[in-house]
């Protein structure tokens, strides 16, 4: 066991800094839901996460990538060895129940701490981690919207790892456009439903890891309203109470670029008489129920991207400090020893860029997780509402910014390793392929962009965006030690205000949304710059290698990255219509 030693999976010193020195999670422990916990518990949970991630998740990460899931001769899904043991250890330790309230058999950890702990598993083996993560999402959904009978039937098995959960939203013809789903749920006299339809991109849709799988399926009950207002949520277990198999058939397995340890399926519901299911929540209220924890889920995707960014950085950093090649500039004497590549300027640039993206992603994800705790547990109504509003605005950024820039970090990790990085002898190429999913799933980059510009920036008269800018300005007020960065950040905020107003004054929604992705990326980079300033303020006068590293990464971000936003804002301010006017034919 290597707990306590520098890991290549995640940086524990950074997590401790973010959780305690910056986000002060200790302050949460005075609140009733978390009163059982203290610093000792938090440290022990993070130790445990690191240990299980290191010993049970990471060892089969490459094997699961090389031998992707397939159907054996008996039709059953075959996964590599180690997946089941990893998930069992994860469940038995209590990680599925990490942030579930104690009255439902959970541990009631602050969401911020749970998220930090779960990042270890995402970094060690995101393909295996996704099985229990999906189950956790199903538990949260059932606890929020399920009947007492449904909770009793499925949640205990989910918490102990014998039952898993899936989310069945997309269909072959309807992915981002859920209004167009055609799966239907026919009500029966006994109160159950018969579900008929085909669901696509279902992660964990069929496997032998658990005795039962409860599919949470979006379907339309005949006679309901058209579009998304007619969508209901139906729970469809693979196995019925009488021990027979429900009418759910594995129609195919998708062969993916990365994330290959997670079996991703096409499922047919109701090939015979209709799959037996039960309504969760209100009729036609399925989308709201499914998206009840959407902010948390999207922050979780961002954290997955970040975790891969951090582990790629740590792997490439280790390589660069041990791989020797060439000599310092001006050193031509081949009789002198070669130097580690980390001493070459361009390699340093690539390493520092990764650090500046990955550590900003981690900080942003944990900041948003802290907002989840604030909105759920702050004793003051106004503070809870404010946290919820800020979380709403930040969620598309917390999902998309790490998905874009920690993927870029993985690209740089490959570049640092050179030819070795392009081979399967080193793990960085897998990190890149695994991470490439994150700008796609749980709402694509483009969907997040439309969410930010079209909805979040203008909701409640722009109150959400104003709150974000006010919050950033509070940081600027505390950043007297860093006048250069504070001034650059303030200038960027002024640009956000102007550009947002310009885009929404365009008079044509097509024009406004045509460059939504550029808007998301520009605002995202400003938010990342703010997160770096926050970290610098938290570092204070600390004088050690860790603090020096933070200062270097912050400096990099302000010198190399924030200035990129200028041309992006210029483009947005011009209300460019190039893409609208292009004829793809």
């Amino acid at each position: 066991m290597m707990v306590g030693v520098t890991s290549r999976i995640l940086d524990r010193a950074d997590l401790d800094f973010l959780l305690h020195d910056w986000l002060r999670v200790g302050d949460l422990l005075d609140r009733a839901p978390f009163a059982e916990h203290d610093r000792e518990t938090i440290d022990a949970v993070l130790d445990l996460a690191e240990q299980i991630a290191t010993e049970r998740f990471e060892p089969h990460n490459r094997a699961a990538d090389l031998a992707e899931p397939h159907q054996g001769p008996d039709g059953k899904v075959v996964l590599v060895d180690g997946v089941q043991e990893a998930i069992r250890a994860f469940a038995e330790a209590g990680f599925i129940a990490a942030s579930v309230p104690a009255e439902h058999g959970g541990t009631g950890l602050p969401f911020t701490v749970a998220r930090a702990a779960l990042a270890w598993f995402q970094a060690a083996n995101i393909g295996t981690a996704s099985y229990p993560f999906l189950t956790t999402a199903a538990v949260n959904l059932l606890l929020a919207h399920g009947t007492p009978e449904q909770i009793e039937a499925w949640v205990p098995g989910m918490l102990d790892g014998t039952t898993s959960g899936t989310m069945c939203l997309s269909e072959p013809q309807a992915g981002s456009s859920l209004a167009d789903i055609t799966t239907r749920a026919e009500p029966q006299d006994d109160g159950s439903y018969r579900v008929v339809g085909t669901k696509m991109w279902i992660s964990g849709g069929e496997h032998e890891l658990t005795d039962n799988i409860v599919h949470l399926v979006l379907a339309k009950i005949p006679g309901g309203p058209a579009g998304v207002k007619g969508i209901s949520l139906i729970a469809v277990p693979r196995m019925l109470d009488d021990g027979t198999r429900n009418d759910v058939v594995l129609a195919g397995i998708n062969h993916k670029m990365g994330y290959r340890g997670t079996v991703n399926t096409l499922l047919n519901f109701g090939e015979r008489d209709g799959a037996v299911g039960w309504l969760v929540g209100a009729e036609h209220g399925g989308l709201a129920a499914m998206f009840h924890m959407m902010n948390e889920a999207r922050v979780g995707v961002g954290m997955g991207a970040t975790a891969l960014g951090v582990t790629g950085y740590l792997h490439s950093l280790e390589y660069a400090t041990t791989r020797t090649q060439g000599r310092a500039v001006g050193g031509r004497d081949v009789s002198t020893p070669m130097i580690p590549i980390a001493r070459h300027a361009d390699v340093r640039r690539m390493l520092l860029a990764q650090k500046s993206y990955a550590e900003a992603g981690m900080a942003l994800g944990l900041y948003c997780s802290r907002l989840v705790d604030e909105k759920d547990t702050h004793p003051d109504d106004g503070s809870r509402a404010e946290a919820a509003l800020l979380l709403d605005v930040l969620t598309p950024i917390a999902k998309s910014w790490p998905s874009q820039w920690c993927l870029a970090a993985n690209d740089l990790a490959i570049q640092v390793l050179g030819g070795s990085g392009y081979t399967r002898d080193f793990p960085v190429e897998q990190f890149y392929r695994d991470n490439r999913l994150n700008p796609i799933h749980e709402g694509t980059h483009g969907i997040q962009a439309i969410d930010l510009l079209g909805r979040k920036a203008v909701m409640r008269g722009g109150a959400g965006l104003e709150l974000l800018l006010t919050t950033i300005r509070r940081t600027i007020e505390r950043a007297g030690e860093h006048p250069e960065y504070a001034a650059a950040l303030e200038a960027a905020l002024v640009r956000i205000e102007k550009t947002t107003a310009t885009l929404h004054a365009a008079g044509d929604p097509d024009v406004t949304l045509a460059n939504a992705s550029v808007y998301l990326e520009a605002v995202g980079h400003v938010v990342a710059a703010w997160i770096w300033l926050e970290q610098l303020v938290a570092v204070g006068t600390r004088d050690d290698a860790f603090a020096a590293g933070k200062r270097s990464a912050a400096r990099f971000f302000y010198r190399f990255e924030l200035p990129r936003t200028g041309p992006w804002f210029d483009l947005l301010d011009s209300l460019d219509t190039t893409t609208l006017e292009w004829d793809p034919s």
Partner: protein
Amino acid sequence: MNIVVLIKQVPDTWSERKLSDGDKTLDRASSDAVLDEINERAVEEALKIKEAGDAEVTILTAGPDRATDAIRKALSMGADKAVHVNDEAIHGSDAIATAKVLAKAIGTVGDVDLVLAGNEATDGRSGAMAGMLGELLGWPSLTHANELTVENGTAKAKRETDEGTSDLEASLPAVVSVGEKINEPRYPSFKGIMAAKKKPVTTLGIADLGLDASEVGLAGSLVQVDSFAPRPPKSGGQKVEDEGDGGAKIAEYLVGQKLI
């Protein structure tokens, strides 16, 4: 049944381990400290006995303040309570002096039936503690057990050696040291971590054990470190030029090292 499990917090084997220049004892500040892995197997074995019947498991360690972390880990795995001997006077104790402290501390636990320990700590590597404790307590000691059954007042153990397997048996009370192959230790759980905070930990000094400072520590130890030197750097190794006979040369080298 009343079981005592000996645990030791040791410098992480993955970090650089040093002795201090002054008194030539372990430089604890220079490395991360962890619960010795072999101790986790001893705890696991005790918990298996507890789960199979009725037993109370007490963790016992001698160490400084930070050994609390190792105690908490053992308690979070499922042990019931702990005794922590924490006294500056113990600093620098050799194996025999340490055994004296532990034997006295075992005496504070009550009617102990079984003492479980790892067969060898990764730092001191004396591998002698179980034998010494057996001697001091007047109990049989079964060492290097890779299998253990305890029933009807008897402990039966299997010990694997290069020559074969030995079957060992002793009546309780007894001291048993376990080997690497005896089990796969469980992970702590969230519930275990939470419960561990409420489990009693008794802290004792050597006066509580009826020992005098002259009996322990550097002064009370028979073994003294006179001098030490860091491990020499790795040599350049041996280069073999392949002149068409590279395979044979490698085989010759491996034979010379008795590796094949």
